[in-house]
C-alpha cells in the first residue's frame, strides 16, 4: 500500500528530487531562518507553492491571478510541482482539482471574481467531499458592468460553502497563510478545502518586503491516508465504496444523512481553530483594545484602517482596530470580547454589500453600535481620510441626536 512512508515519497529529514529538505511544518514556520525579499504578490504565490510540495495545479487565466497561476506553471517546468495544466473553464478547473484530490494529491489553484462564480457549484461539493484543496482567491469585482478591479464582494458568496476562508492583509500574510493553510486544512479532524483570500491588485500587483522561509526547505507531502474519508486510489479494496453516495432514493434516512453531514462540516470548521490559533497567533489581532471607537476589518481594508488610526492619534484621539484573519471559522467569541466596552464600531469594506458588517452585527450584542461603513466598490481606493470622515460624520450626527432628544 502506498502510504506516507512509501519509499518514493521523501520523508521529513530527506531531500526531494529538487534537493529541498522536507521539513517539519512547525519548524518550517517558526524556526527556519527567514530572509527578506522584495516581491509582488503573484511572486509570493509562486514562492509559497515552491515550498508546499504540491502534486497538481490547474490554471485558467483571469485578472488579477493570471500571472500567479502561470508562475506556478514555471515551477512545474522546473520540477517543483507534480503536474500542471490549463483547464477549459473555472467550473472544469475546480472539477479537475477535485478529481486529483479524490485521488490523493495535494492540489493548488487560483481564481477571482467571475471565475469564482463560474466555478461555484464545486465549492460546497469540495467541502462535502472533504477535499483539502487550496485555492487563492485574488478577489475582484463581479459583472455587470464588467470590471477587473479589486472588490471583495465575491467573499460574501463563499461564506456558506463549508470552506475554511482566511483573508490576507498583505503579501506576508499571503505567504504564511498559504503554507499554514495546507497544514490546517489537511488535519484529519478538519480535512476541508481552504480559500486563502487576498485583495486583487492591492496585494497581487504591488511589491512588498516579505520574510520568507529558505528556498531549499519544503512542507512534508500530503498523506491521503490521514483522512476521515477514503482516498479513491484502489489501495484499500474491495469494499463497495462510492465517494460520495448521494441519498435520493433512501427517503427514510436521506434528510438525516445530509443534515448530519452538513453539521459535521461546520463542526470541522470549528475544529480547525485549535490548529489555527497557535499558527496565526489568534484569529484576530487587536490594537488599542480599550478605545471607545473600534474599527473592524479584514484584508487590505485593515491597512487603511490602521492609517486612519494614525491620523486620529496625530490629533490625540484614540481609535482601536480589530483585524480579522479568518472569516471561516468566524472569530465570534474573540470579537465579542474585544468589542465589549466599545461604544461605536465601524466596518470599512471594499464592497457594496457590507457583508462583514452584517456578520459582525449578527454576532455581537448591542449591535446598534455597528456602522456598516465606509464602503467603496468596483476598484475605488479607500484613503484613510474617508474612514476618518465617516467616523466624524457619524459622531457629529450622534451628538446632534443627543442634543435634540437629550
Amino acid at each position, binding site marked *: 500500500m*502506498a502510504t506516507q512512508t512509501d519509499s518514493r515519497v521523501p520523508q521529513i529529514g530527506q531531500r526531494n528530487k529538487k534537493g529541498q529538505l522536507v521539513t517539519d511544518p512547525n519548524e518550517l514556520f517558526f524556526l527556519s531562518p527567514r530572509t527578506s525579499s522584495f516581491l509582488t504578490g503573484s511572486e509570493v504565490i509562486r514562492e509559497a507553492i515552491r515550498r508546499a510540495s504540491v502534486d497538481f495545479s490547474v490554471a485558467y487565466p483571469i485578472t488579477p491571478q493570471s500571472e500567479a497561476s502561470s508562475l506556478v506553471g514555471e515551477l512545474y517546468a522546473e520540477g517543483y510541482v507534480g503536474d500542471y495544466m490549463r483547464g477549459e473553464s473555472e467550473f*472544469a478547473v475546480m472539477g479537475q482539482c*477535485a*478529481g486529483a484530490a*479524490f485521488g490523493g494529491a495535494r492540489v493548488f489553484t487560483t481564481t477571482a471574481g467571475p471565475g469564482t462564480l463560474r466555478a461555484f457549484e464545486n465549492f460546497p461539493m469540495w467541502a462535502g467531499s472533504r477535499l483539502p484543496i487550496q485555492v487563492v482567491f485574488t478577489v475582484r469585482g463581479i459583472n455587470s458592468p464588467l470590471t477587473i478591479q479589486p472588490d471583495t464582494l465575491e467573499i460574501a458568496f463563499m461564506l456558506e460553502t463549508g470552506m475554511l476562508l482566511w483573508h490576507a492583509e498583505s503579501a506576508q500574510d499571503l505567504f504564511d497563510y498559504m503554507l499554514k493553510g495546507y497544514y490546517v486544512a489537511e488535519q484529519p479532524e478538519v480535512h476541508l478545502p481552504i480559500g486563502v483570500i487576498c485583495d486583487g491588485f492591492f496585494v497581487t500587483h504591488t511589491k512588498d518586503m516579505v520574510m520568507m522561509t529558505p528556498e531549499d526547505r519544503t512542507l512534508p507531502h500530503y498523506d491521503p491516508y490521514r483522512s476521515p474519508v477514503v482516498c479513491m486510489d*484502489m489501495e484499500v479494496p474491495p*469494499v463497495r465504496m462510492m465517494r460520495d453516495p*448521494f441519498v435520493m432514493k433512501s427517503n427514510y434516512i436521506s434528510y438525516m444523512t445530509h443534515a448530519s453531514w452538513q453539521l459535521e462540516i461546520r463542526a470541522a470548521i470549528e475544529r480547525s481553530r485549535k490548529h489555527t490559533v497557535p499558527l496565526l497567533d489568534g484569529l484576530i489581532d487587536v490594537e488599542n483594545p480599550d478605545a471607545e471607537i473600534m474599527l473592524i476589518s479584514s484584508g487590505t481594508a485593515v491597512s487603511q484602517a490602521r492609517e486612519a488610526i494614525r491620523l486620529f492619534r496625530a490629533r490625540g484621539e484614540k481609535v482601536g482596530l480589530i483585524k480579522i484573519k479568518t472569516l471561516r471559522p468566524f472569530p465570534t467569541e474573540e470579537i465579542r470580547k474585544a468589542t465589549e466596552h466599545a461604544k461605536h464600531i465601524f466596518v470599512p469594506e471594499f464592497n457594496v454589500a457590507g457583508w462583514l458588517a452584517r456578520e459582525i452585527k449578527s454576532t455581537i450584542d448591542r449591535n446598534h453600535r455597528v456602522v456598516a461603513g465606509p464602503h467603496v466598490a468596483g476598484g475605488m481606493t479607500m484613503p484613510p481620510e474617508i474612514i476618518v470622515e465617516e467616523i466624524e460624520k457619524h459622531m457629529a450626527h450622534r451628538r446632534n441626536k443627543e442634543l435634540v432628544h437629550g
Partner: protein
Amino acid sequence: MANRIQINKEFIDIMPQDYLDLVDSGTFENPNRGWKDFGTATELIAEHSLCAGCPESIAFRHIMASIPNPEDTVMVGSTGCTSLVFPMIAVHNIHSLFGNQNAIATGLKRALAVRFPDRVKDVIVLAGDGATVDIGLDMTLQSWFRKERFTTICFDNELYANTGGQESGLMQKGFLAKMAPVGKRFEKVRLPEIARESGCDYVAIMTASKPSLVEKVIKQAVLIAREIGPTYVQIYTPCILEIGKQSMEGLQEMRTSEAPGERFKFREFISPEAQSFLDGLAEKKKAEKIAATT
C-alpha cells in the same frame, strides 16, 4: 485467491458476507476475467435500485465483468440513473456533480500518475447521455482534445431518465418528450463521429445485447486508453420506463435498434496507433498460446 485483495483475519467475523465473498471469489487480479464468470464468481456489482428490467443494469454487469484490471481501476460517475448503481460497485468510484465527470477523471488520472508512476491505474468514466453530451459536453470534448488517458462510457438512453424523461441531445429527432412538447426539433447528436474528430483513439457505438461484444469493446477501450489515448464507448441502454416498454422487453428493444441500418448498429473506429497496439497484443497472445501447447 488474489494477492492484493486480502482480509485481516481479525476482521473475518465482523465483515459482511458480501465482503468475504468478494475476497474469496471476486475476480480481482484475474487477467482472463470476463462475462463467463457469471454464476461462478462474486460479481463486482451487487443489487441496484434501477427499475426492474432496466437495461442499464445488464450493461453495467457486463462492463464490470469485463474491465481488465479492477484491482487498480477507479470509476467516475455522474448524476442520473447510473448513479443508483455506483454505491454497489466494488471498485472505488466518485460521484460529485452532474456533468463534470470528465473533469474529475482528468484530475484523478493525473493524480494517480503522479502518485503511482510505476503502476497501472485505470480510470473509467460512466455517465448518462445528458451528462456526457449536454451539460458536460465541453468537459467531455476538452478531455479528448487534451488526449487524457481514460475511457468515457456513455449510457445512451436518449433522454434524461432520472428527472423523468426530458429531451436530451442524444434523443432522436421528432421524439415527443417532456420539454419537447411538439417533438424534438434537431437530429440526434453524432457524438461517435465527434469523438473521432476530437482525438479519441478508439470509438464504439453499440447496444448491451451481446455480453461477449461488450467484453471485447470494454477491454479494448480500457487498454487503448491506458497506452495510447482517450477512448469512447456509447451503449444503448433504453429507458424502458419512458418509452413504454415492459420489464422483459429491454433486450428486444436493443436487438431491434442494432439491426442493419438502425442507429445502434455496431460501429467501431480504431486509430492507426491503436490498431497497431491491438495487433501487438493479438500477436503476443498467439505466441503465448503456441508456447503453452508446445
